[in-house]
């Protein structure tokens, strides 16, 4: 089973999904992220799905669950880099991802988190 690495940049955790994940890896990522939010006191989570070719109901549910869990742990989640074909398919599938914030790319995701927090979350980045 593949594990997705979780990177820390300032007060943000960044996850970039680069391969087609099987369901157990998706669940493991969900748990890793919850643990890391608490362990690091992160204020934001960015999930980069630029490389993700499909989002089905399982991954969609994982994105919504991560957003809900991190919110309860005082962190905001932003999903970035969704491909247009993925967005079209998700809507037709019936998944609106209502509770999940999105941004077009990583840079905009970081800007959104900074804006939400009212303070500069990323202190490490120039």
């Amino acid at each position, binding site marked *: 089973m593949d594990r997705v690495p979780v990177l820390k940049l300032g007060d943000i955790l960044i996850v970039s999904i680069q391969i*087609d994940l*099987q369901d157990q890896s998706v669940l493991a990522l969900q748990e890793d992220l919850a643990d890391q939010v608490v362990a690091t006191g992160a204020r934001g989570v960015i999930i980069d799905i630029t490389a993700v*070719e499909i989002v*089905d*109901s399982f991954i969609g549910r994982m994105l919504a669950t991560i957003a809900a869990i991190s919110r309860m742990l005082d962190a905001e989640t932003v999903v970035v880099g969704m491909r247009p*074909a993925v967005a079209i398919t998700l809507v*037709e599938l*019936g998944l609106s991802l209502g509770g999940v914030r999105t941004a077009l790319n990583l840079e905009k995701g970081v800007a959104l988190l900074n804006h939400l927090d009212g303070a500069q979350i990323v202190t490490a980045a120039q």
Partner: protein
Amino acid sequence: MTTSDDLPIKSNSDVVLVRQHVRTAAVNVGLSLVDQTKVVTAASELARNALVYAGGGQVRIEIVNNGIRKGLRLAFSDTGPGIPDIPQALTDGWTTGGGLGLGLSGSRRLVDEFDLQSAPGEGTLITVTKWAR
């Protein structure tokens, strides 16, 4: 001429393999990027259902031709418990597995043709087709 590819669905990694084979076939048929994405997503839902609700099954991936257009046909079969109430199973939000209840109803929207045959104790056969435009 038709080409077909049979794959088992016995584990979570098989579901990943099904997605990959369906993607390759969708490219070969000449589906647009959006249509490739739709049919691979439907395949992922139906493969997972076979695994979760029937303990496994198989899929036949076939390139078909109706004389005018090429298409991709996927037949998911299992010998699991079957679906007692098909209209109910095809309703958005209906789930017996704690899911979102979108796999079947959503897949139906993502393809051009959708056929579901099932009866209690007799397994399930779901055939979907996506035509190249």
